[in-house]
């Protein structure tokens, strides 16, 4: 990776780390993990299920909020504040800027997830007094959550490269919601015929399939996760993010910075 991409990614990470709003969100997520302990206490025999479910949902939800909140501003803020002018007047290619921003935000979310995961494991340890082998599946769920963040970061970057922060947030969130029901959309397509079937099927495959990444329920119930699903989700997230980033680069390469 070029030194310029690393410099842009590090700066994006540093900006996020020094942003106080981020700390508020992390604190709130940890608080929610703590609340899971309380809810677990009053849920007889299903304490573990509640702690894992609530804890991982908190990690996922707040990570998504952070990804959208920061992601939509990544390009627009640099244009609005004109910091991009001094960056692009250097030997920096526009695609390097987009890729650097993507890695910076994804890196930030990985670090956040790490700290929030500590909160989840601490809550689990408090309730169960010990961690057992199958609890390692929580790591797989966390990995899938990070893959979701990658997808959201790339989508937020794409929208941020041509529209306002507000519209970018709306578009990204809408795609996240639709993508969370991608399986239902496919099932619906299977029930229809003719042109409707083609359109529904096309849409189902076009929107990011977030539902495939949600294994929180399965992990909470102690069900194993197939290796093939891990491989499939990894490849899907990587390819989909790369395609969306390519779109963002394509838009940004031709944009006049008025």
């Amino acid at each position, binding site marked *: 990776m070029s030194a310029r991409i*690393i410099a842009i990614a590090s700066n994006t990470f*540093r900006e996020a780390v020094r942003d106080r709003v981020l700390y508020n969100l992390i604190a709130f997520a940890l608080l929610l993990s703590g609340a899971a302990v309380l809810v677990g206490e009053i849920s007889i025999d299903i304490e573990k299920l509640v702690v894992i479910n609530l804890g991982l949902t908190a990690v996922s939800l707040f990570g998504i909020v952070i990804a959208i909140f920061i992601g939509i501003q990544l390009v627009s803020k640099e244009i609005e504040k004109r910091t991009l002018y*001094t960056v692009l007047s250097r*030997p920096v290619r526009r695609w390097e800027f987009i890729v650097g921003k993507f890695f910076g935000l994804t890196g930030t979310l990985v670090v956040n997830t790490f700290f929030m995961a500590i909160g989840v494991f601490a809550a689990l340890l408090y309730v169960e007094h010990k961690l057992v082998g199958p609890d390692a599946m929580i790591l797989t769920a966390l990995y899938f959550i990070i893959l979701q963040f990658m997808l959201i970061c790339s989508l937020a970057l794409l929208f941020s490269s041509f529209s306002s922060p507000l519209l970018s947030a709306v578009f990204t969130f809408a795609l996240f919601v639709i993508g969370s029901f991608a399986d239902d959309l496919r099932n619906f397509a299977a029930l229809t015929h003719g042109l409707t079937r083609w359109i529904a099927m096309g849409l189902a495959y076009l929107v990011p399939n977030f539902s495939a990444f949600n294994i929180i329920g399965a992990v909470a119930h102690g069900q194993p996760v197939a290796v093939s699903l891990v491989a499939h989700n990894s490849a899907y997230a990587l390819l989909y993010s790369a395609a969306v980033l390519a779109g963002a680069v394509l838009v940004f390469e031709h944009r006049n910075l008025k």
Partner: protein
Amino acid sequence: MPAIEILGLEKTYHVGFWRKRPKCALKPLRLQVEEGEVFGFLGPNGAGKTTTLKLLMGLVFPTSGSARILGHAWDDPAIKAQIGFLPEQPYFYDYLTAHELLTYYGRLSGMGSEEIAQHLDATLELVGLRDVKGLQLRKFSKGMLQRCGIAQAILHHPKVIFLDEPMSGLDPVGRREVRDLIVRLKQQGKTIFFSTHILADAEALCDRVAVVHQGELRGVATVAELTAKVQGKIEIVWQGTSVPASIRVLSGEYHITGDTARATIAENQQDPAIDALRREHLRLISITPVRASLEDYFVERLQRAETSAGGKA
């Protein structure tokens, strides 16, 4: 080899809801700046100065035309390592310290860690920010930010430096500091291309200036050449407290101090004014040419442009 060659750069934006209405921001511009020159790019707000700089920096794409910097195509990323740029009213990442900011820009310019360490303190020293290098930029004054902006533009020792309104919004002390910096950079052999609407700065610093108005180049020359084209004025001083009627008509301004009177009149009215003094038996003390300023030239060019535009309409 010229440091900067602008070969017909032109920019037209399409505005309106359907983006069908063309709006010309810059008419084809041809300009050449020699190496080691301090070149002023003058014009009122909205004249096309910032558009020109954005085109040269690759921030906006030209409708037509091209440019060469140090003999290379202006959009060649490699040439950008030889360029420094300070945008108008710069804003930097305010969560960074001056030290962190310059390290970041150094990395983007392709400098290694050692090279950055070598140049960083000297650059901050040059712009007078060495003592505050650990302070976050959000605590900087406007003048300090401007100097920080210049520091990021010169850290990597570029050969050509572009400054967009470098003195804008600064107090007199800040302006003086930036002026001194530009002089020092010129002494180091840098080519400096700066846009401004503060004519006194251009007059004090520039080897040559270009005047641009309504997206069109109106003139390029040395300050002396430009001001020589302006219809000069003279100050005429005589002994006495009376002002001949014809001089009152010729002069827009006259003053009487003690037993001497003075009036400023157009250069070509010198003979009728002397005749008037002679007729009234007033003793002539002196006739001094009043140096035409760049501002006189500027105002005259703009008035001429407006007159011709009015004539066409």
